[in-house]
């Protein structure tokens, strides 16, 4: 008999929990604690017709569009970071067909997942009042039934699958996050299915000893995958800093070759290496250690 509390599996096995047509939400924020290994695994598995939702989206936006994996994106902002600006191919796709991208304010996006995590159909907010964002989203104006205040009602978002990368989890999926939690807890609580990738899988005893650090309880988690450097080239708080040289090279490639550049990046970093471990081999230990050293400088003792 298998142990029901042991949810460990491989990236490839976890990717089978995502079906064509699903709405996914990816945790972390922009280039921080992104479930990068899992996202690449879904590209490798050639999932189709996905809706990818993420509060602040980095260049996974255009990887998912250019590979044909996603047909719709939902976010509040899309950019690689101040230095690199908006991803060029994402821009081209959306300028051609604005309907493939739904823009919310950051809090409105978060409240949609909070509503989902509360088991409630909507939440009220003061955000998006008077803006043109309002008419381009399903949000509606409402009056408070008690004070008659004008507010905006945002509908709950209950994603089919949440992809979350954390520093540590036990085999049952009890997951601990160091540094900012971003919206990961809301994502995990709202989604029907939750895939957790972790820098390391630790014993249940270790989780119990530091239970106040546990952000996501195992009972909402369906899969646990151990993936060291699972956010790389994005950062993972306290573990490794984002690889800005990798971003520079990517941005340069896409600036020069557009969608062909994105395809080339996918061939070189997803298809070519054949696995996330293969991708890390290509990056090399020297670089990974350097990014680890840089992260340590930023974490208060």
């Amino acid at each position, binding site marked *: 008999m298998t142990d029901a509390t042991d949810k460990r599996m491989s990236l490839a096995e976890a990717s089978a929990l995502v079906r064509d047509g699903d709405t996914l939400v990816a945790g972390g924020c922009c280039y921080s604690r992104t479930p990068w290994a899992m996202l690449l695994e879904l590209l490798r598995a050639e999932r189709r017709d996905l809706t990818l939702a993420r509060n602040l989206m980095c260049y996974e936006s255009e990887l998912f569009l250019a590979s044909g994996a996603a047909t719709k994106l939902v976010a509040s902002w899309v950019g690689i970071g101040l230095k690199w600006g908006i991803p060029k191919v994402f821009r081209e796709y959306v300028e051609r067909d604005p309907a493939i991208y739904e823009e919310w304010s950051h809090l409105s996006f978060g409240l949609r997942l909070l509503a989902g995590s509360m088991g409630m159909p909507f939440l009220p907010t003061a955000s998006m009042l008077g803006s*043109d964002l309002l008419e381009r989203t399903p949000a509606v104006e409402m009056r408070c039934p008690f004070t008659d205040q004008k507010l905006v009602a945002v509908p709950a978002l209950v994603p089919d699958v949440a992809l979350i990368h954390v520093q540590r989890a036990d085999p049952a999926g009890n997951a601990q996050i160091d540094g900012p939690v971003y919206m990961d807890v809301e994502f995990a609580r709202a989604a029907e299915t939750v895939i957790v990738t972790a820098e390391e899988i630790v014993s249940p005893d270790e989780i119990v000893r530091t239970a106040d650090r546990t952000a996501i309880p195992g009972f909402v988690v369906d899969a646990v995958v151990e993936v060291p450097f699972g956010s790389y080239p994005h950062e993972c708080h306290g573990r490794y*800093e984002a690889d800005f040289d990798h971003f520079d090279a990517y941005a340069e490639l896409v600036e020069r070759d557009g969608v062909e550049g994105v395809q080339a990046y996918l061939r070189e970093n997803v298809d070519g290496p054949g696995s996330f471990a293969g991708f890390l081999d290509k990056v090399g230990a020297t670089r990974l250690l350097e990014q680890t050293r840089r992260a340590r*400088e930023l974490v208060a003792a």
Partner: protein
Amino acid sequence: MSDATPVELMTIAGSRLLRDGRVVFAGVGAPLEASVLAKRLHAPGLTIVLEGGSIGPRMLPGRLPVSTNEMRAAHHASMLTSINDLFLYGQRGHYDYGFIGAGQLDQYGNVNTSFIGDPDRPKVRLPGSGGANDIVSSCREVMIMTRHEPRRFVERVDFITSPGYLTGPEARRSAGLVRNRPVAVVTDLALLGFDEETGRLRLDALQPGVTQQQVQANTGFELLVSDAIDELAPPTQQELQELRRLRDGDPTDVPETRKVTSAP
């Protein structure tokens, strides 16, 4: 005359607006640099909050964050919280200032960071709201910092991502935006306020050496002008040095790992 660049002039003028003991929600880039500068110089009790969930961080010189969510933005914070909570403190009314940049803004302080052209057939797709819409909807005093160029200062924005006065104070009120108000626009040419009656931008002060005509020539609509236009004091050596040290770092500093505990 100081040798400050336009962005430095703007950033330093912005930093002077922030008072000690207050809380500022700062966007990444110049608003964040202005906030860090204020904290290091005249407002040591200023609390900076950043979109990624970071409350009260201190920046390492030479390692300014490129996004508000990364480790650099969380350095030496007194609290790291969820993004929803970070915004909800603002919606509750705990943030004195909201400080953002702008791609395009109009005479009522409405900001567009979404589309250039018709949103259904955009000429250019911009990165989007992020937290800017939430900041202008909740933080008590909203301040905007941007380079002063005609293509940015337009009569009417193509899309209102983050509302200012919409078409005037009554329009803002009836839209339900009753918690706060836009107060200032800081540029490399001037400091602008808002006319209380009309909600339109008003020229209040000039950057050193800049003329009123120059400001108007770089504005795509007719600016209201204050009865008594001030001239902003030029950046001090201290302001400039500190700002440059923040951006470029200082090789003679103590090792970064030790700065963690020895930061001012």
